[in-house]
């Protein structure tokens, strides 16, 4: 073992230089050429800066609500609820979310509420929701903003992101982009 120690230390040092310094620097260097220089996808609106991949909390009636979050959209931490599917405490909270949603959207049938609007995401920072989650909120927002529902439906249509190459994965809508576009509609 003793005769292995020095060579192992020297080899480790060279590997550190190569894999823990040169490799990340290379990726970092190339990232300079990516759309937002490797600082996360950024979105500017009214002179303010947002991260389009980091979901935000929307609770006001005039905005499309985002999904519930176990970390309250705190982007300096992340995580899910880690609640088991049959946990009574958890199911009670889901029921409460449904009631809250119905209280704010009185014109909506319960069966129209999509599951993503009453369940917390894995990261607590989910930037997206489903198309149904947008549509189910149209009546409330139209009322809050005094707008035509059809304009909102058109907006949802425009903001819907199709599956990758039209073939793989689910459809989704970025809530932040949708709400910014909503603000721009005025």
């Amino acid at each position, binding site marked *: 073992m003793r005769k292995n120690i020095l060579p192992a230390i020297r080899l480790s040092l060279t590997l550190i230089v190569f894999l823990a310094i040169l490799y990340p620097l290379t990726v970092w260097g190339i990232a300079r050429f990516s759309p937002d220089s490797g600082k996360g996808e950024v979105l500017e609106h009214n002179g303010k800066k947002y991260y389009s991949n*980091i979901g935000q909390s929307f609770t006001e009636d005039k905005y499309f609500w985002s999904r519930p979050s176990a970390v309250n959209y705190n*982007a300096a931490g992340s995580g899910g609820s880690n609640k088991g599917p049959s946990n009574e405490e958890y199911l009670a909270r889901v029921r409460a979310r*449904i009631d809250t949603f119905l209280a704010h959207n009185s014109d909506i049938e*319960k069966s129209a509420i*999509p599951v993503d609007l009453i369940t917390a995401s894995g990261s607590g920072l989910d930037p997206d929701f489903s198309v149904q989650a947008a549509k189910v909120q149209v009546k409330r927002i139209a009322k809050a903003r005094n707008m035509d529902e059809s304009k909102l439906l058109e907006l949802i249509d425009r903001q819907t992101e199709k599956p990758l190459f039209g073939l793989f994965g689910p459809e989704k809508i970025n809530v932040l982009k949708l709400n910014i576009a909503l603000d721009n509609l005025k």
Partner: protein
Amino acid sequence: MNTEILGIIVIFVLSVILAIPLGKYITKVYAGGKTLLDPVFNPVERLFYRVSGIDPDKEMNWKQHLVALLTINLIWFLLSMLILMTMGSLPLNPDHNPGMPPDLAFNTAVSFVVNCNLQHYSGETGISYLGQMWLMFLQFMSAGTGMAAAVVVFRAFGDKTTTRLGNFYNYLVKSCVRILLPISLLIALVLVFEGTPMTFEGKDSITTLQGDPIEVSRGPAAAFIAIKHVGTNGGGFFGANSAHPFENPSYLTNMVEMFAQLVIPIAMIFAFGYFTGRKRLSRIIFGVMTVGFLFLVVPNIIMEMKGNPAISAMGIDNSLGAMEGKEIRIGAAASGFWSIVTTVISTGSVNAMHDSTMPLSGMNQLLAMMANSFYGGVGVGILNFLIFIVLAVFISGLMIGRTPEFLGKKIEARGKAQADSLRKTREETPARLQNGSVISSAQLKKGDVFVCEAGDIVPADGEIIEGLATIDESAITGESAPVVREAGGDKSSVTGGTKVLSDKIIVKVVTRPGESFLDKMIALVEGASRQKTPNEIALTILLAGFVLIFIIVCVTLKPFADYANVSITIGAFISLFVCLIPTTIGGLLSAIGIAGMDRALRANVITKSGKAVETAGDIDVLLLDKTGTITIGNRKATHLYPADGVNREEFVRVAVLSSSADQTPEGKSIVELAQVNPSNYNISSSRVKFIEFTAETRCSGVDIGDTQIRKGAADAIRALAEKDGNPYPEDVANKVKTISEKGGTPLVVSVNNKIVGTIELQDIIKPGIQERFERLRKMGIKTVMVTGDNPLTARYISEKVGVDDFIAEAKPEDKMNYIKKEQNEGRLVAMMGDGTNDAPALAQANVGVAMNSGTEAAKEAGNMVDLDNDPTKLIEVVEIGKQLLMTRGTLTTFSIANDVAKYFAIIPALFITAIPALQNLNIMKLGSPESAILSAIIFNAIIIPILIPLALKGVAYKPIGASALLRRNLLIYGFGGIMVPFAGIKLIDMVVSLFI
């Protein structure tokens, strides 16, 4: 088709397809072949080795590998502790995160060094960027270590060696630099262009659209996340791992990250095939793994897509699936798929929270982690699977009476005693010199001249300088037919230890002392080594492993019980432990061994060790002497062919007359064939003169008055005829040729030197021998016939009786070499012999059976002696050996299967009061916890004596083919082993319940 499902199928198929060329590339990398990337990596690696002073071409054995691996990992561990504890005050810490306390640093260091990547810190708040970069380094190293270990095993399987297994540092560097790095770089580039951060700036503060101030953690994540998947490490950069929208920003990155963790584990399976030249095996392994993988993954996708029924019951739209803990951009299907990929491959990264998946999905995730080998981690996945194969092969091999070929075989040196009697022959044979004085053979020098007459043993190797003699060379060649040796020409040499049968020769010694044939033979015997079965060792290791596992089970039960507020009495712990450890088989092992020797003795075979009997059951190749085993010792006349124009009756008469005085078995058989009594021919004895066979004339016969009848070898009679100007008829020549081709011996008969016909002598194959070979073939044993005959005859006979191979014109070295060759290919060889010439081969063979009538040297060299001198006895010995192995294997299976029932009896009993839900496990419905434990203990105590008779009698062996045998024994002893204790414990419990 549903786009979520399509996405999964595409990523899986793509991973498999790309794993094939990657497998080839990996093979080339480790085998030192040329690759496209050489111009980049060769100089880099040279620099590494120059700086570190390592010679990458130095071969290591497995111990050196282990030491190198552990040493460098220890260094990484120590560095990890240092960095993780002090990183709070080191550079690259823009968020001012603190260093880790020692316990957390220890946990993190160990978990990243061993590729486990368990995280008890959150990436956003618990570690600096320097710490992250260090963990990223460990993600390369732990994966590289696993791959290096796999290559060592590939080498061991491929080259069948345990000493020259390549260089650990070479494998480690190649894994990291040539495999992990390029793939990671590609993956990292996709990630940064899809939105994963790669920045050294710290947290950003922003205000949301609604006006809330929040902070956004960033960091050099892309490089980290790439190797996290490529190296199947799994530790996340951010707390939410790959569910985090920075770690996994889009469906495309999700596909890429799934591909990144799947591709190398699958490629390693193909690389195993290319590397060891066992492509078929690697394809089978891949197939089995894929079936296992699909069995786990398909239900999970379905269950996650169906959604939580408790939420469906609330009456909302649950069509998206079980979305708690899942991300919209990924969806339920890809989350369900990932949950199995990451657990079964041991990555451990998540793109959805597993705590919130459906209960049965969670079960599959746990099963996947336990199997850990349906593809498995880089390097270690295939290793895990090979361990499973070895275990399965071992247990099922034993159950059908074979030692698995997957296990290596050890070589054990043998004592030198068996060479002693050979040495005696060489040194103490009297040698008569020309002047009449007699000295011992040991005193003969090269150039000395000695005389041998009929009956003498030739004292030394030499060359005949005068005379001609028939010599019995059976001690060397094993063939009892005498041969002619005469001065001059190429038949002039004689060998020490052979016996002169007729005539007288004068011989000059041609070898120096110590170089004679006998000396070589002694050296061969002394040098021959015997292999030993690894069976008992392996079984002991297996049982020890079980004991260790059960100790861990029993000891860890205590904290579990404390947590569940259950107090378990010491008595209950001991009962559980006693019931679980495989005492049954442990107690019976020696009984089985002794019973094997005893059964051999009853078959009139004395064995020198129990191991020999056990080995006999494993025999792959059986060497049998032709004479006496396959054929009846002597040749017999089978046909009489008169020459053209010769009356058949007349020819028969001549043939019988020529043999009437011939007392050799061949001669007698001619008379028998003709079915006439020579005395019927009414020949007055006064006119008859019998001519004996001599080596000179090579024919025998009778003179009746003027009529000279001769019979003998074709060329001898031909010479006689042609000397008198008589022709050698063409039809006779043809007949002679056909008889030889058919493996027979032609004798030509002449009357007054005129050729009258041919007699055909044939080897007579023992009745029933074909059936015996058929039985051996069903046992999976290759039979080899050893004979001194020419290859033509040997082939004819071997085809006729159905042996698989033959050694023609066999000399002792030929047998030795044949045995060695088979052994080098990992087979066990048995051989039967009686002569001194057989001794080296008997010593070399794994099972050497000597005839009791054989020479002392043969008996000493073998490890069994057959008292009946029956050459076919080996078949019985093999069956006894198989029975021994099978008894051991089936009883082991039975004993281990017993544990299942005992577990069900005791565990619910221990916990049932504290955890009422365990009532579901209490399928046996035993009276009370006390009676359950007591019944299990009583059952445990009485099952051993019940099994003793079976251990002594042995499990019946039937040559019905390996898989049929395995099925049968698995059913009886595996399934039976589970059912019997269920019934037994229940019955005992009913009785015990009456009293308590």
